[in-house]
Structures are given as C-alpha cells and as structure tokens.
C-alpha cells in the first residue's frame, strides 16, 4: 500500500522502517517485496518513472526521500558526476560475488563504487522471418528499399545515430563533427523507408505486422514474439548498444543500511530468476541464466549469443557533443 503523502516525512527510522524504491514500472512485483518485508520487517514503497530523464529531473530537482533507484548505465555516470549517489559498501552486498565478471568493471562506474548492474539487455533488430526471408546480419538491412514503410526506429537521438555510426564503423559514442554529420546524411537517406520513430509501441507494431523490421530493445521484441511466433531478433555484426539498469543508493537516502540490504536481496539468485522470467531481461547474476525457463534462456533477445558479447558497446555521455547530435537530430526530423 503506497502512502498517499510524500515520503520523506514518513521515512523515519524505528520499528517499522520504510524503504522508497524509485524504479521502472513492473521491475519488482508484490511477492518479491513481500519476501523482503518479511525478512526485514521494513515496508517498501515503490514509485515508478518512465525514462532516465524523468529519474534525473526528479532527483536533480531535489525530490528527496528515495533510497534506492534503478538508473541505466549512462545515467549512472551523470548522477555520479552530479553527486547524487552514495558510495556502496560492497561488504554489505555479498551477492555481488555472483555477478558475471564481465559486468563487474564498467566504463561508467569503474571499480563499482556507486552502482551494481541489475538487469541488462541489448538494442538490436527485431524482424519478421515471414517477411524478411534471409535473416539480416547487418544494420544495412534498415537501408534496404524493399522494406520501405516496414521499418520502425527508436525515437531516441543517441540510439538512432548509434545505428548509423555503427553501420559506418564508428563508435556510437563518436564525437567527431564530421562523423556525426555523415551519419545524419545516411539517416536522411533512410528516412523515406522509415514508417515511424517510436520508443513506445514497436512491440505492438511488430506483433500486428505493421512493421517487419524494428530497431529496438530486446525485451520488447521478446514480448512481441508471444503474439507472432515468426518474429526473430538479431544483433548485427557491426555491433550494438548494450544497456544495463543498475541499482544505486541515493545520497539523500536516510536509510542507507536498509538500502544496501534491499539491493543485496534483489541480486539473490532466486529473486533474480523470478524477475528475468517475468520481464525477459537478462540478469547480471551469472547463476540465473542456467535456471530460467529454456525459452527465455535461448532467446537471443534476452541472452545474446556468447560470441556477440564483444560486439556490444556501452553508451556514454558525450558532453558538449550532445549539441551536435541535438542539432543533427532536429535537422533529421525537419527535412
């Protein structure tokens, strides 16, 4: 039962402690919370945000009172820089031991001082094998005139430019004006083929057969597969974005101890298995993969093939280059 007043006033320590968890909708369900509450006697209040930007806006705006949040990778680095996060005491989070090693040292948080990876996934191409006969292995397919009007792209400037940059062999964190300019030209060339730029409902569109190729997050594509079995997911050979939602403790938290215990709880194998099965997002806990349902484990949209791993790249803040992206993005839209 979420209280209908703003939390800080309530989050006093004492007999019944309350933990405020700010996260993506559906990331935790009742049972999990119940488990934790049973174990600690604390009460968990969950608030949800719809984008990392919203999370930041809120925390930066001074919406105090949250203890634990689940920002994505690039947002972690921003929040660190803005000094919004509290250092973790890994001693109190024993479950970090079971994290996949390759996820333990990340560009946006070297040496895991502020964040532990929680759920991760990739941004690739979801496609309908009934329409796209030969499984594509390159981003180039998104430039294939045969699929004019059957393509959807994410409505996100970094991701979309990422596709073009990758296709041209650049990093998706490219900051060279020339490269960005060139990417823009390629995207302009692609625009006529694109049916819609959307981050919201391409899963619907895939399932309904409105689009045959969708640039998007694996989880969403995985969801769509239930509706339309002929859907597939591929991570192109040029590589793709890998993202991870991490668990962090906010500096303004009044209950850091409880917060650490909560993070530790979420990383517990049983809990994590449950989460992955439900959300179809790969867990950072290496023991989980072997224990989730087969159709989840074998779904490349959830767990990319091992060989793909080294083609994945994290998206990091590009500083003032954002202006270049921004400008190019606006031009892309207005042409």
């Amino acid at each position, binding site marked *: 039962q979420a209280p209908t007043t703003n939390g800080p006033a309530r989050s006093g320590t004492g007999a019944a402690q309350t933990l405020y968890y700010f996260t993506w909708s559906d990331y935790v369900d009742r049972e999990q919370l119940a488990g934790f509450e049973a174990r600690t006697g604390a009460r968990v209040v969950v608030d949800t945000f719809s984008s990392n930007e919203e999370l930041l806006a809120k925390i930066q705006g001074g919406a105090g009172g949250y203890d634990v949040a689940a920002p994505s990778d690039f947002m972690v680095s921003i929040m660190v820089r803005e000094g919004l996060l509290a250092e973790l005491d890994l001693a109190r989070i024993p479950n970090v031991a079971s994290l996949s090693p390759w996820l333990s040292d990340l560009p946006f948080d070297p040496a895991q001082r502020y964040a532990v990876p929680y759920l991760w996934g990739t941004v690739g191409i979801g496609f309908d094998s009934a329409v796209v006969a030969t499984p594509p292995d390159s981003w180039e397919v998104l430039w294939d005139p045969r699929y004019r009007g059957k393509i959807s792209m994410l409505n996100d400037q970094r991701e979309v430019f990422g596709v073009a940059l990758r296709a041209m062999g650049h990093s998706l964190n490219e900051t060279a004006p020339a490269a960005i300019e060139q990417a823009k030209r390629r995207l302009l060339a692609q625009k006529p083929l694109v049916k819609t730029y959307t981050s919201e409902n391409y899963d619907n569109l895939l399932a309904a057969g409105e689009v045959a190729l969708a640039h998007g997050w694996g989880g969403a594509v995985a969801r769509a597969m239930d509706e339309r079995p002929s859907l597939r997911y591929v991570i192109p050979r040029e590589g793709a974005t890998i993202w991870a939602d991490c668990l962090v403790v906010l500096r303004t938290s009044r209950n850091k101890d409880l917060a650490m215990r909560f993070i530790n709880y979420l990383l517990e194998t049983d809990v994590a298995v449950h989460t992955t099965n439900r959300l179809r997002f790969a867990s950072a806990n290496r023991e989980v993969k072997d224990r989730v349902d087969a159709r989840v484990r074998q779904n490349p949209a959830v767990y990319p093939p091992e060989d793909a791993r080294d083609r994945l790249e994290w998206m990091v803040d590009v500083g003032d280059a954002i202006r270049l992206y*921004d400008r190019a993005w606006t031009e892309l*839209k207005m042409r």
Partner: protein
Amino acid sequence: MAWMGLFFFLPLLLVFVISFMMRGTYGGVEWVFSLDNYAALLDPLYLRIYLRSILLATATTLLCLILGFPLAYYMARLPAHWQAVWMVLIMIPFWTNFLVRTYAWIFILRSEGLLNTVLMEIGLISQPIEILYTDAAILIGLVYGYLPFMVLPLYAALERLDRSLVEAAADLYATGWSRFRRVILPLAKPGVAAGCLLVFIPSVGAFITPDLLGGARTMMVGNLIQHEFLVVRDWPFGSAVSFVLMAMVMAGLWGYLRWEGRSWLWR
C-alpha cells in the same frame, strides 16, 4: 490573485531568468547571462518548427470549430437536464488514460486497422489507405483531444442566444446558411473566440500525439521543448523556446483583438 502571483508568476519569472543562462557541459544551468538561446532560435530550422506547429494547431482549431459548433448548438437547444447529461457524456471519454486512448487510435488507423478493415469490408476501398503516421492522423488525434475545450464555451454562448432572432432572420428572407452566417455566428462570437483559444494553445504545444500518431517523423514546438528540457537537459534553451512560443501566441491574440476592435475576448 495573491495565489496566482505566488504559484504562477514567481515560477514563471524563475524560468524567464533561466532562459537567459547557459547549459552546463553535462546539463543543468550555468549562471552566466547570454542571449545565445534566443539568437539560436532565429535559425530558419527552428522557425520552420514554429511555423509547422502553428499551421497544425490552426487546422486543429478550425476542425474543432466545424465539428463543435453544431454539437454545441444542438446541446443548447436540448431540455435543461439533458444539456447537463450531454456535457458529462462529452467529458467522460477523457477520464480514460491518454496513452491508452492513443493506442486505441493507432489500432483504428493503422493499415490493417479497424477503419481500413471496415472500409474494405463494405467495399469502399480496394487496398488500405495509409492514415496512421501522417498529418491526418495527428489532426484526428488533436481534434479528438481538444474538442470539448471548443464545445463548452460555444455551448455557453449559444445557450444564451434568443431563438426568435433566428426566426426574425428567416422572416426577413435569410436562407439557412445566411441565418447562420449573419445572425447565429456573430452572436456566438465570444464563445467562438474563447473556444479557439482553449483549443489552439494546447494543440500548439502538443508533443505526444504528434509522436505517437504522426510517427515522430517531424518535430513540433512541443517536441522541441520536451526534448530540450528532458533529453538534452538544456533548460535555458528549452525556456527560451517556450517563451518565444508564448510571445507569438500573445501577439496573435493581441492582433486579433485589435482587428476585432474589441477590448477583451469575452466581452
């Protein structure tokens, strides 16, 4: 009054100040005065965004007027308690969730959607027409969203209109159309003005409808503002964009009143 001052003008002032500052390298506000934000807006690229938004908003307003006027006229003629019922009926659809409604529209408009299926069933068209992800879709979405804002003030104005004036016009040889043109419309003018304002403003700043129904293939001012505030986190620029929009609307309003030679809309 004091209330408005406290919770409206102070905040506004704050944002106005910010619109003259600069973005920090990693977002946030750097407290250095500069006019760059406004200068940047002179770029034809942005002007096109404004133009496009204003055109769309104007179209929306007109459509709302065309659809809303008969509706309001009809309501005004109903027995008193039915008028109340219709008002509620017109509002209720908006007690559902905006996003879900929009998804419903997507389902209706998409190429294998409800509309096309029906049209093809009854043989009006041979192959699906592309409505979704066109400006048409945006218009439908906006008109749908803001129709009540037009109907209510219109209704208020028409409900005050004396029936026998229309009869007098008929008696003086006015045909149905000229009765509307020469008597009903002019007498409903305050309502029309209010309604148009209430529709135009929000639709000029709309951004979710254009994204979802328009396919985000182009930008509206609303998108720009939201993009700057949230994605790029360039609040100064976002504020500047907003203030210019405000200024444009106010100017338009002022011009209208001037042209009307009237002191205020509802007078």
